């Protein structure tokens, strides 16, 4: 096991023994070993001079870090409801059978492990899997059979068919952001001509609001950071696109990386930041090489580094940090914790990141799309940007459309577009339910399709999942509840316990043992989660249940077997062992399920 220690030590040295790099060090160590044996953690703790518990705490937090050995081929099926609708469960069973491995286990020879993971952001080309962290799309029976053979033969990933790893952009509708050519540096030049204050003023006039879901004013955020005390400001790009059903940031990073990085540089120009960090979700690791190449080109072109575009005192560069499978890290303060090499536990706000962010420094955290949009403002001016969209939601919005429609993919619409219009464009023939904004979003029923995508009406970070008449809204909500229970960071009791209880109730109903009383308990839990949780994860976890209970109540009621109470387990079956042990079968050795209270 000296090998493990050596690999760990090398990763620590590569990151200059910087404790804030702990997560990156753990990811690299695992890349070298396959998992994180205790010796490696001990060695990392020694070298970083951190408590052993802190290192183990971080290693245990992220679902892509493994304390126990996993298969040489580690296969994770994206488990969003959309992947399931495309047949992911059946394909996973098939692969498990072919590889002779149970879900969540390692095969006898150690060659493969198969499990599920939260949405990998490939809803428009699923079912999707991750193989050793790399995305494989458009899975079908033929691909599963072939993958099973490749795994059995021990074929290195580099020799697998390249088309398996091909990820399409599927851009279906282009507006100003996706439609226009972009010359790197042009937006930056335009903003620098206006001066830092003039540039901030343009952003203010644009009315730009955050595209990550919360919709906070970008100009207010930038001004607050610009005015905050402290010279060492930071710009963070939140590319931890974990909301189930969302993939527009993936497409932007793949096709518009220049705009995204230029947007970060524009934020640096506005705030005076010198350091930039892009937090890339682990699921999008395949984009890392491309993004680093774009950064190198920009450095060579004088768009990053010291004296950007010859401007004395304008120094700014960007690093990329990898996530490791934790939805909660998309919350900006959890993301900052993760960037600092800690568990992704959301912080208490205030203080806000603009004054106390990354390592306590004033920090701007913006979504990928928000940053890309700032290039439009620089090039066309704030007023032109504000000319599209609605009064309180200016500009365009990228939607990630998936589910029961003919043309899933990314669509760019001016804010204010109706849901009915979007449904028609994407070729949804029998839409019954649309889940806007992902698992934490809003469930829209047919009678609401006239509603508009805008912060004033139906806000969204971009997910737009379509369900037709064959689908069951209850199963959709149950899938999301499982997702939240899995992704709860465990820090606060209302969320950690509440999401687990909610999952238990939904499973009880699904197994046909529901009672009226359970609906009352579910509603009580919904309120508790909403009001008592530490962060947005817990407070939005009951959203799909609250909405479907209001709009699709019969989907719940038809699962009820009793109006009063019904145990979640079979009482008579619970006596079976004792019956066997005693050889009894008299009436007293049974509990009649019909004898309700």
């Amino acid at each position, binding site marked *: 096991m000296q090998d493990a220690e050596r690999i760990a030590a090398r990763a620590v040295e590569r990151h200059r023994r910087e404790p804030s790099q702990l997560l990156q060090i753990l990811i690299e160590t695992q890349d070298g070993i396959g998992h994180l044996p205790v010796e490696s953690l001990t060695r990392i703790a020694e070298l970083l001079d951190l408590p052993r518990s802190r290192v183990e705490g971080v290693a245990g937090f992220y679902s892509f870090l493994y304390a126990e050995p996993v298969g040489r081929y580690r296969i994770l099926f994206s488990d969003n409801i959309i992947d399931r609708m495309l047949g992911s469960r059946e394909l996973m069973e098939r692969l498990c059978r072919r590889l002779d491995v149970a879900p969540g286990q390692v095969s006898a020879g150690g060659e493969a492990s198969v499990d599920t993971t939260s949405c990998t952001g490939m809803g428009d080309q699923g079912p999707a899997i991750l193989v050793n962290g790399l995305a494989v799309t458009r899975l079908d029976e033929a691909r599963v059979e072939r993958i099973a053979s490749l795994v059995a033969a021990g074929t290195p990933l580099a020799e697998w068919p390249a088309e398996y790893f091909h990820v399409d952009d599927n851009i279906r509708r282009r507006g100003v952001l996706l439609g226009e050519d972009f010359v790197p540096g042009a937006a930056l030049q335009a903003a620098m001509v206006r001066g830092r204050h003039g540039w901030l003023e343009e952003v203010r006039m644009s009315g730009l609001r955050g595209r990550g879901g919360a919709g906070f004013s970008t100009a207010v955020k930038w001004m607050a950071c610009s005015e905050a005390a402290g010279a060492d400001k930071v710009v963070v790009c939140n590319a931890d696109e974990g909301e189930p059903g969302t993939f527009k940031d993936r497409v932007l990073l793949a096709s518009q990386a220049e705009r995204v990085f230029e947007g970060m540089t524009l934020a640096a120009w506005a705030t005076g930041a010198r350091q930039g960090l892009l937090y890339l979700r682990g699921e999008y690791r395949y984009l890392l090489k491309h993004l680093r190449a774009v950064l190198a080109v920009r450095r060579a072109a004088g768009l990053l580094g010291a004296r950007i575009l010859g401007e004395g005192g304008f120094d700014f560069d960007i690093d990329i940090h990898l996530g490791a499978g934790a939805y909660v890290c998309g919350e900006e303060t959890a993301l900052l914790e993760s960037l600092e090499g800690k568990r992704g536990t959301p912080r208490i706000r205030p203080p806000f990141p603009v004054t106390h962010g990354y390592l306590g420094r004033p920090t701007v955290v913006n979504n990928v799309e928000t940053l890309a949009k700032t290039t439009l403002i620089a090039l066309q001016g704030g007023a032109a940007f504000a000319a599209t969209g609605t009064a309180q939601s200016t500009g365009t919005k990228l939607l990630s459309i998936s589910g029961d429609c003919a043309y899933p993919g990314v669509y760019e619409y001016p804010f204010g577009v109706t849901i009915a219009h979007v449904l028609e464009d994407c070729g949804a023939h029998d839409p019954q339910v649309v889940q806007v904004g992902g698992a934490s979003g809003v469930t829209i029923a047919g009678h609401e399709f006239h509603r508009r995508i805008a912060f004033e009406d139906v806000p969204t970070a971009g997910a737009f999942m379509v369900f037709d008449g064959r689908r069951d809204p209850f199963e959709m909500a149950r899938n999301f509840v499982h997702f939240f229970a899995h992704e709860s960071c465990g820090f606060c009791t209302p969320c950690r316990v509440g999401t687990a209880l909610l999952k238990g109730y939904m499973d009880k109903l699904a197994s046909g043992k529901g009672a009226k009383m359970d609906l009352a308990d579910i509603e009580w839990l919904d309120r508790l989660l909403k009001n008592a949780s530490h962060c947005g994860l817990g407070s939005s976890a009951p959203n799909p249940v609250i909405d479907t209970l209001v709009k699709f109540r019969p989907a719940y009621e038809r699962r009820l077997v009793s109006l009063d109470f019904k145990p979640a387990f079979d009482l008579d079956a619970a006596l079976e062992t004792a019956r066997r042990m005693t050889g*009894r079968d008299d009436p007293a050795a049974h509990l009649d399920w019909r004898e309700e209270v």
Partner: protein
Amino acid sequence: MSDSIGMPRVRVATTSLAGCFGCHMSLLDMDERLLELAKVVEFDRSPLTDIKHCGPCDIGLIEGGVCNAENVHVLREFRRNCKTLVAVGACAINGGLPAQRNHLDLGDCLQQVYVKRDGIEEGGVPDDPELPLLLDRVHPIHEVVRVDYFIPGCPPSGDAIWKFLTDLIGGRTPRLAHPLLRFD
């Protein structure tokens, strides 16, 4: 609590399922307030009265979790008869100490105790129909019937039970605040 002569007294039933009677001891720990309670309360089935079956009641207090078939029958009888059913103490709420066997296989447990144990010559798992069969796991009572209120504690103090009952009888939603609300 006022002397309510002429008013029908509140009927209360109590029982211990898979419990240690510690919660009942706590009930007695109200000391002289028991006399005051007795003015407004009438006990139905309870270890205090030795009544064997529960009749229609206002309040049922359940100590202990559900570990065997008899516990299920008793609990159902209480639920059928009591307008308000209260889980009293850690075992009723979480399964408590008896639920420690949930980590073990029941078959192994019975084998170990009645067949394999040192000193047993002609062992055998008791099979008399008089004995209630064990469930494979110990359950908190709310997993078997609907429960209206929960008083945590191992056991809840006499003060907590007093506060809870006087609230309930007085028509106030029972509320245990610190320091009465405790889980140890």
